[in-house]
């Protein structure tokens, strides 16, 4: 019996190690490799793509920044994703609160309608037609407004469920004290729903930051491009400046990776369902 258990334990240890090595190899090494190449000179990379950056230098980053219009594009991306993410979070809250409290007679109907959005055909083609008709095509404000909607349904679902856990008595207290609705939302509901608000904001921010189809469909002037589109300047059909491209990738990914590392525990725990500490 003991030997059987021992064998099983050894089996378990082998499984743990094989899986750990596999995960690192498949999920981590590619990312580290890209960072590695971004630190090499073009000559080092051409000599051997498998070489390790023994003399790391940051010239790729500076030249990627200058040749690729990276500065303005990163500014565009930041502007688009922060403003659109903020608007989406705010509007989600504006919808979620009355729905969660049943303040509107058709709350339940509206809530169901928000779910309908998940079951509609891909909307990119009519969205393009609408963008042209409403003058949202190829301008910053339009691009931001077009990116507000995608995050709303999930945001409302998340925030409604969080708001429902807040005691009704708090609303009543605010009403009796004559606290205005917007002030109540801002100084009471928002702080108490902080995790839900953060998840909604980050999720919509990521959606805009990483969008690759939007810039192709809704933008035409290079000056308006976010990095997600601008980075393709490094990728030519015949001559790709690989070290520049990898540096560009690192620049694009770094902000979201840092954000992710800050909040990943919370996001992963929330997604698992918090079943275990």
């Amino acid at each position, binding site marked *: 019996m003991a030997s059987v258990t021992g064998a099983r334990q050894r089996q378990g240890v082998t499984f743990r190690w094989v899986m750990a090595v596999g995960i690192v190899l498949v999920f981590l090494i590619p990312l580290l490799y890209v960072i590695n190449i971004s630190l090499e000179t073009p000559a080092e990379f051409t000599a051997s793509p498998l070489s390790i950056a023994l003399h790391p230098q940051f010239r790729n980053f500076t030249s990627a920044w200058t040749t690729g219009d990276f500065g303005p594009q990163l500014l565009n991306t930041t502007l688009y994703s922060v403003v659109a993410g903020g608007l989406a979070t705010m509007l989600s809250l504006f919808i979620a609160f009355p729905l969660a409290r049943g*303040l509107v007679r058709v709350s339940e109907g509206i809530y169901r309608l928000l779910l309908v959005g998940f079951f509609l055909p891909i909307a990119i083609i009519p969205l393009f037609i609408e963008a042209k008709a409403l003058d949202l095509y190829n301008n910053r404000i339009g691009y931001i407004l077009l990116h507000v909607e995608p995050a709303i349904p999930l945001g409302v679902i998340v925030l409604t469920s969080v708001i429902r856990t807040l*005691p009704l008595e708090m609303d009543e207290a605010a009403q009796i004290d004559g606290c205005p609705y917007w002030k109540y939302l801002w100084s009471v509901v928002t702080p108490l729903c902080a995790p839900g608000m953060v998840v909604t904001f980050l999720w919509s921010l990521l959606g805009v930051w990483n969008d690759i189809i939007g810039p192709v469909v809704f933008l035409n002037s290079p000056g308006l491009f976010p990095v997600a589109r601008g980075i393709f300047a490094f990728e030519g059909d015949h001559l790709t400046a690989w070290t520049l491209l990898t540096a560009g990738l690192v620049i694009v990914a770094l902000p979201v990776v840092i954000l992710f590392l800050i909040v990943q525990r919370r996001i992963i725990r929330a997604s698992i369902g918090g079943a275990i500490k």
Partner: protein
Amino acid sequence: MSATPALAPKRTRAAAPEQAAPGRRARQAEVARRRGRGVAGWSRGSRIFMWTGLGVGLLFYFGLGIVPGVGTIVVAFTNYSAFPGVSTNFTGFQQFAAAFTTEGPLFYQSLKDTALFVLGNTVLTTVGGVLLAHRLAGARKGDGFLRATVFMPTVLGATVISLMWLFIFDPSAGPVAALGKHIGFSSGFFGSPTMALPLVVFVQTWAGIGFGTLIYIGGLRAIPREMFEAGTVDGCGWWRRFWLVTWPLLAPSTTVVVLLTVVGSFTTYNLIYVLTDGQFGTNTLGILAFNSAFSGSANLGYGSALTVILFVLTLIVAIPLQYWLRARERRAVD
């Protein structure tokens, strides 16, 4: 255990009137009376703010969510073109018919590519998700780090992921090609008719498996420990224990993972757009519809018709699949 939070607010609401002082009860009745009129006891200004906020939010949702979603079906019945000067007419089912006649060869090939893409993704994500979840469900040292590693692609986004893999599998400059040279293997990778689809499936799964893994971790943690112990005492090997105990008990998680992956794979095209742009046997319906509308012919009507076909196809697959998966969950409980 899990029912407690759901019950808590109900209990407070029910218990409050009895515990409350008379004055408070009157106040609550007043509040309830005012809520009965449709809006709570907020001031007039607050009500205007509330209605405006709700209205603007819903305007966004309807105008840029529901309208274009339904609009796809409308545009599919027209010959709408992005070229200026071309008049738009209702063309009935002409665009749909085109898919099966003039555009037939491309369309049928696309159906095949879509089927392989969806099947490949679903199998890889489900099997890989279960495997990864088994390794990552614990709380030992390093598990959190590995979890974050597997989840990382979810935040990286299509641009970074696709360009990174294009680079790694570049046939002339990439590291995989350099490794292959040592063993005498060479390929066009994303530019090869045989390799492109498997590689695209791999990248798509790589990008999305974090979610599947998290869902399975949640499922694993919900299984009572005694279930595993019973299996251990009975002297089952790990495979029998997995197959007879764990896998059936994971049925609800499998339902979610499979449905999300199937629907997601049918509709996604942003990674394919960069990796192959639909060439070399990766022309799924999603990318074909997108390219029909936005490159070359700029035929928004035909692109919409393909999107509607894709939508119907997704429903035809997903609805029976859901019934089957739910039935499977019930069998697992017995």
